[in-house]
């Protein structure tokens, strides 16, 4: 069966380059699942969790926005940042979440559109990171 070759790059480094069976990505218009022979697709990403499935096993990464391109069984992801579960600093993410929640409460009480949006994005970013570490822990306890 055909597989997908995935490449995840950030401006600072190549995070991952691999063959997988399925990619689940947080696109702006909703989460997309990409299987081999997917139609050519170009989309922007929102902060969220990205899942790579290969032979029954899955790898989870936190991305904080970027772009995704699918063509000819090749998935190219230009991420603003991308971290594997083991790279996420959980304490820092937790602190960022707390700060973003405070900022969001303040911003929404003042009705400042731009600030609310910025705080919401920051919150999503920290949540994605936390989610990734939690999924990793679950997997460890189940095995």
């Amino acid at each position, binding site marked *: 069966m055909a597989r997908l070759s995935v*490449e995840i*790059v*950030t*401006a*600072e*480094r*190549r995070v991952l380059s691999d063959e997988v069976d399925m990619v689940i990505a947080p*696109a*702006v*218009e909703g989460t997309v699942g990409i299987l081999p022979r997917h*139609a*050519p*697709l*170009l*989309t*922007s990403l929102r902060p969220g969790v990205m899942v790579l499935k290969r032979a029954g096993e899955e790898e989870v990464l936190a991305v904080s926005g970027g*772009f995704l*391109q699918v*063509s000819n069984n090749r998935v*190219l992801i*230009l991420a603003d940042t991308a971290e594997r579960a083991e790279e996420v600093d959980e304490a820092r993410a937790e602190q960022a979440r707390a700060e973003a929640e405070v900022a969001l409460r303040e911003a929404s009480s003042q009705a400042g559109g731009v600030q609310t949006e910025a705080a919401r994005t920051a919150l999503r970013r920290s949540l994605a990171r936390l989610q990734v570490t939690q999924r990793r822990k679950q997997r460890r306890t189940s095995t």
Partner: protein
Amino acid sequence: MASLRDIRRRIRSIRNTGQITRAMQMVAASRMRRAQQRVLASRPYAEAARTMLGELSQQRLDPTAVHPLLRQRPERRASFVVFTSDRGLAGALNSNVLRRATEEILAREEESQIVTIGRKGQDFFVRRGRRLAATFTGLGERPEYAGIIPVARVVVEAYTAENVDAVYMLYPQFISTLQQLPVVKPILPIQALEEEGTPLEFIIEPDAEAILAALLPRYVEVQLYQALLEATASEQSARMIAMRNATENAEELVSELTLSYNKARQAAITKEITEIATAAEALTAART
């Protein structure tokens, strides 16, 4: 002829200098390796961004809504982002870049806008009484992507506000450890990209214009980031070579001075012996 003590003092001082330059050479060498790795690590993203822009430019875009960063207009006023290092002792690196920058600026009738990166560039233009649109220092020490974002914002704003009609970056391109050449590269307007092969029919979400609007400023940042990384690699290798030459010169001086020290010492000893011998002879002559 210099006295023995003077020569000894000079040898000691040159030897100290040589030790310092040798240490600086080692530091620069290890930083250079890291900087080169960073340059390599940043390439996949830049290439991917280029591919994506190419694909996007082949899609049917609304011709009435060309993105401002792609819109070409006759160049009257240019902006230069000049990359220099924060610290000196890097050979001719900075003076080469600044000479090239001066040529480019003098070649244009309208006064160009200048944005400097690095303390050396800032000092150079301020000393000449040039107005700087913006100046950034401390970026090259530990180059990070986040550091370049404000630089990109300055030039993108100047371009979209039509204060300038073109933006160039000027940085020492890393050719090899021994060679760095100042280059001028246009970054705005973004040149239309040509992709080979037949265009694919992409499903685009939300739409091509929205993706372009997000990707184009990113692309400007990426190009500036790569220039920063190359400038850092160039700086470290130029410094390494400069310090290696200084260390070699110090060693040469020390060996020359050691030779003249030994000669002077020999001469002093000979003189002393002659004096003793003469005195002894005078004594025996007096006794008889």
